[in-house]
């Protein structure tokens, strides 16, 4: 199919469900991820709303009892819902989210390639995610898992839930993540168009590159840890079991050796998206391209040396705690470099407040709060007080939701016209931002205060002193829900009746906007020859 007929694109090139399920086109695989991850997000989000509803009032109140009786019969069901909220959001939404949807779709386009390096492996990765997700969801209908998404030993060894199946599911989803990362690294190294040097790559590609390195180097340790946990349950091998002289804290070391870098697997792609959005919607060359690009690698590198800050009160030695405390603060350096360069990019730019730009600005506002409270938690004596309180819950939701999900929404609105060739209703998109942004702060800011007051996380109930702030928080969760529903409606409406999108509606400079909307199957009718950097606006 050298010369596609006029009007032919990757969407209408082939018809029928099977053509999608067997497609090796990176753009179609990106869409597969888009649809499925959106579905998982709705499931995980529903759990979140239920959890907040339970916490609307303490169980000593009549209202609290009514709510608790209606949703969760007891603390066990609450623990299960909490586990599924965490596991689904982490392993099925935020980790694969931006890299698998937008990395897949746009990374080859941005570097001028025809596809990712290994198209078959790419499709296989999607199927692995589906198999893993199916297994994880299957545990809901067997013995529900109640360990939390971290599967801490020794409880996870003794829990009566289907932990082994859940762990196998995460193992397979981990393989999916490894193969996506591997594909992206090989694509960046080998498939760049002529003239597309590393230093001419869009910053989104640098972010995906750093993310992929983490996926490849950290996930195998999670794999072996989960395998050992499963063996522990089946044979009682004793490695994490104190009864046989094993060390449950070692499980935490192994687990966080993956899961701390995984936090950056979740946030780095979001940072890449923000770099794209800020420069596009301020029509200004990005400030400090090199610094932003290498700070992504810097964050990736540092992230392997800081995992112990999750373990200050786990029984880890004081010496290790002190070392990790200092190392953790280093993460602030490359992160701040990004933030200052982004701010400098906006300076004297011609800023357009599109929905994407609003989400990008929301990201900057919320991520700074999330990041700075992270530095607070890195300080060992402060963490001893805040550990396992709602302060920590608020902190990582500011990063994961305020950071990653805001960027994900920004990315959806930014790239939607390219992906589907349709424009969406800007007013509705902005409305979704207003609800999500306000709702988010109403939900999670009170949790900082609750944490400071000592409210522990993961509990089914609380003392009446925490009631007011919890009520506010729950109302906020409804606002977030409304925001996402408006967002979803705006997307569905655009798909059904959106105006036709031009090739480059935002006047962006990166390569994906140089081809039609939606792109043709082979991405570009002529292989691009790159002669300048990605953001030459002036």
């Amino acid at each position: 199919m050298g010369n596609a007929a006029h009007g032919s694109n990757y969407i209408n090139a082939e018809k029928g469900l099977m053509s999608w399920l067997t497609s090796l086109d990176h753009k179609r695989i990106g869409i597969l991820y888009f649809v499925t991850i959106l579905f998982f997000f709705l499931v995980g989000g529903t759990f979140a709303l239920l959890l907040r509803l339970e916490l609307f009032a303490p169980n000593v109140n009549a209202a609290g009892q009514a709510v608790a009786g209606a949703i969760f019969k007891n603390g066990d069901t609450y623990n299960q819902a909490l586990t599924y909220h965490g596991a689904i959001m982490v392993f099925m939404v935020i980790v694969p989210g931006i890299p698998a949807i937008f990395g897949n779709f746009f990374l080859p386009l941005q570097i001028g390639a025809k596809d990712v390096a290994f198209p078959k492996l790419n499709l296989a990765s999607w199927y692995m995610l589906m198999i893993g997700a199916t297994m994880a969801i299957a545990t809901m209908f067997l013995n529900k898992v109640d360990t939390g998404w971290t599967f801490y030993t020794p409880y996870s060894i003794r829990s009566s839930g289907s932990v082994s199946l859940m762990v196998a599911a995460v193992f397979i989803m981990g393989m999916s993540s490894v193969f996506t990362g591997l594909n992206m690294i090989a694509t960046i190294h080998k498939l760049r168009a002529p003239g597309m040097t590393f230093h001419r790559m869009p910053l989104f590609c640098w972010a995906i590159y750093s993310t992929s390195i983490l996926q490849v180097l950290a996930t195998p340790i999670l794999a072996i840890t989960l395998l050992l946990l499963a063996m522990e349950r089946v044979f009682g091998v004793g490695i994490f079991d104190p009864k046989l002289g094993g060390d449950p804290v070692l499980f935490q070391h192994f687990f966080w050796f993956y899961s701390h870098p995984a936090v950056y697997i979740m946030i780095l792609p979001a940072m890449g998206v923000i770099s794209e959005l800020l420069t596009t919607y301020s029509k200004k060359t990005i400030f400090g391209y090199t610094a932003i690009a290498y700070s992504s690698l810097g964050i990736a590198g540092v992230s392997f040396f800081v995992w112990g800050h999750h373990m200050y009160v786990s029984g880890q030695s004081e010496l290790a705690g002190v070392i990790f405390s200092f190392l953790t603060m280093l993460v602030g350096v490359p992160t701040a470099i990004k933030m200052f360069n982004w701010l400098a990019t906006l300076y004297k730019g011609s800023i357009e407040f599109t929905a994407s730009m609003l989400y990008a600005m929301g990201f900057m506002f919320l991520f700074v709060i999330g990041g700075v409270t992270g530095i607070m938690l890195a300080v060992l004596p402060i963490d001893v007080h805040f550990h396992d309180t709602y302060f920590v819950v608020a902190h990582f939701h500011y990063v994961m939701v305020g950071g990653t999900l805001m960027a994900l929404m920004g990315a959806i609105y930014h790239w939607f016209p390219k992906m589907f060739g349709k424009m969406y209703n800007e007013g509705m998109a902005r409305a979704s931002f207003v609800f999500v942004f306000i709702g988010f702060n109403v939900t999670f800011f009170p949790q900082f205060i609750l944490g400071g007051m000592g409210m522990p996380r993961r509990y089914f109930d609380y003392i009446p002193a925490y009631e007011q702030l919890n009520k506010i928080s729950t109302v906020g969760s409804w606002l977030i829900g409304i925001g996402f529903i408006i967002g979803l409606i705006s997307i569905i409406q655009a798909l059904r009746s959106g105006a036709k999108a031009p090739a480059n509606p935002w006047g962006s400079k990166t390569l994906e906007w140089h081809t039609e909307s939606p792109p043709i199957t082979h991405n570009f009718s002529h292989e691009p020859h790159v002669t300048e950097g990605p953001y030459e606006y002036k």
Partner: protein
Amino acid sequence: MGHGHHKAITPDEHHITPLSVYLKVAGALFALTFLTVGAHAIHHVLGSAAPLVAFAIAGVKAFLVMAYFMHLKYESIENRVVFALGFIFLIVLFVISITDILSRQLIPGVL
């Protein structure tokens, strides 16, 4: 994706290790395996050095396998770095975990 019967093929420039090198490397690997067992036979004499000897020999064997059988000697810098990263990060995991475990008894009574 049809695989036809190929006609005349002009060879591309892939590196081909000579047969003699493979045989020599295999010979060395066999010899080193015997050496390991030999060292084990006198491990009472070697004392605490015995594990070091065993792992030094294993290290040499591993190097031979990686360099010649896996063709890392002729591989691009990129791929060598990729492979080396795995070992580097394992050392990170080991060093930090063991620092914690060994230092748990270091300051008794604190906290």
